[in-house]
């Protein structure tokens, strides 16, 4: 067998072994396949992907599934592959509130997401512990997502409050933590 043939044989072995390695290591070629597998393995979904947003470690995937809203995370791995992040399951939203939401963090990466039930809501603002105000006027099929990164594990970056406004700037919903 010539060296060229040996290289071809090795390349075939490597493809098979690499696929096995991916399979055993929970690695995926695309963020959405990691997301779908993540949901199924935790017995949730399949949800409808409404919005995908990049962050340093990977992607946030904002989804709707029946009575639940979720924001799954998938992380980049080995340069071009993807693996599970955290929080694949959602919260059951209360349709009687103008907006309903939840928030959480993983290390210094924070996210707050939710649903708009009152179609008068035109703008949502959140306030962080250090007084920073983040606002959103573009929503994703009735859902919203705020993401931010703390510079360190400082309480200043905790979520403090949320307000929803109508087109005239009148507060429709307000909640402080």
């Amino acid at each position, binding site marked *: 067998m010539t*060296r*060229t043939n*040996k*290289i071809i044989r*090795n*390349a075939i*072995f*490597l493809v098979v*072994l*690499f696929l*096995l*390695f991916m*399979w*055993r*290591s*929970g690695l995926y070629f695309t963020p959405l396949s990691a997301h779908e*597998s*993540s949901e*199924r*393995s*935790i*017995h*949730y*979904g399949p949800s409808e992907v409404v919005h995908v947003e990049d962050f340093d470690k990977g992607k946030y995937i904002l989804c709707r*599934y*029946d009575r*639940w809203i979720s924001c799954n995370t998938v992380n980049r791995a080995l340069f071009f592959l993807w693996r*599970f992040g955290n929080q*694949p*399951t959602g919260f059951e939203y209360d349709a009687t509130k103008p907006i309903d939401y939840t928030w959480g963090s993983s290390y210094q990466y924070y996210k707050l997401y939710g649903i708009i039930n009152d179609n008068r809501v035109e703008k949502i603002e959140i306030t962080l512990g250090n007084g920073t105000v983040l606002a959103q006027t573009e929503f994703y099929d009735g859902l919203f997502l705020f993401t931010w990164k703390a510079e360190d594990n400082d309480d200043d970056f905790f979520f403090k409050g949320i307000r929803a406004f109508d087109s005239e700037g009148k507060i429709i919903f307000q909640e402080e933590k």
Partner: protein
Amino acid sequence: MPSADKEEFLREVLSHIRFSLDREDIRYELESHILDKKDDYIAEGYDPKEAEQMAVADMGDPVEIGVELNKQHNPIIGWLWMITNAMVVLFVVWHIFVLGSQLLRLLFQENLLNDIPKENIVYQIDVDEKVKIDDTVIHFTHVVYEKNGDLNIFFKHYDTRLWGTGWSLAGIGTIEDNLGNEYFEGGSYASGGIISNCRRIVRNFSEEADMLIISYDYYNRKYRVEIPLKAGDTHDQDK
């Protein structure tokens, strides 16, 4: 002492081989040829020095040979071959280690039932109830009630996709009895692996209950398992 002619010939040939890792093999092969021919000439009656010079001369032009051998021992092909060989070995070792350790764990799994001393058992029930959520099969195997009021639910779970990876099983659901009690206190253990052996301990389970109800209702997945218990006046140990 090596002949200058032979060494010069080999040096000249090898100076054209760019893939350095092959030089030693080529040197060995050429030297073997020369020595074979030298032996032939000696057998024909030539003295060793003359025989070696003739053998080297028979080999031909060292430059031509070197250039030709260099084509056959292309450094890019050579390095690719070496690197892919090393990668195949690394992957195979990794798979043997990972899959092998999982298979060993599967073969030598401990029997969790043995963790409960026999003298503490009020009754033991063999169960054979299987439920499935997505790709996960949960197989309830035993229920053991202890004198201290602990009810132990033994089960195994596995993924129907061969050795599938994913989140581990979060829980088997809510634990209730036929008297309307719901139980929250307790603990659990899971061995992990391809087939995970698990034990769920429910504290202060009612002695009077004669039905254990395990119900799962999360995110549109549901199951309900009802296991009759040996309750009432006859709490004899099931041998």
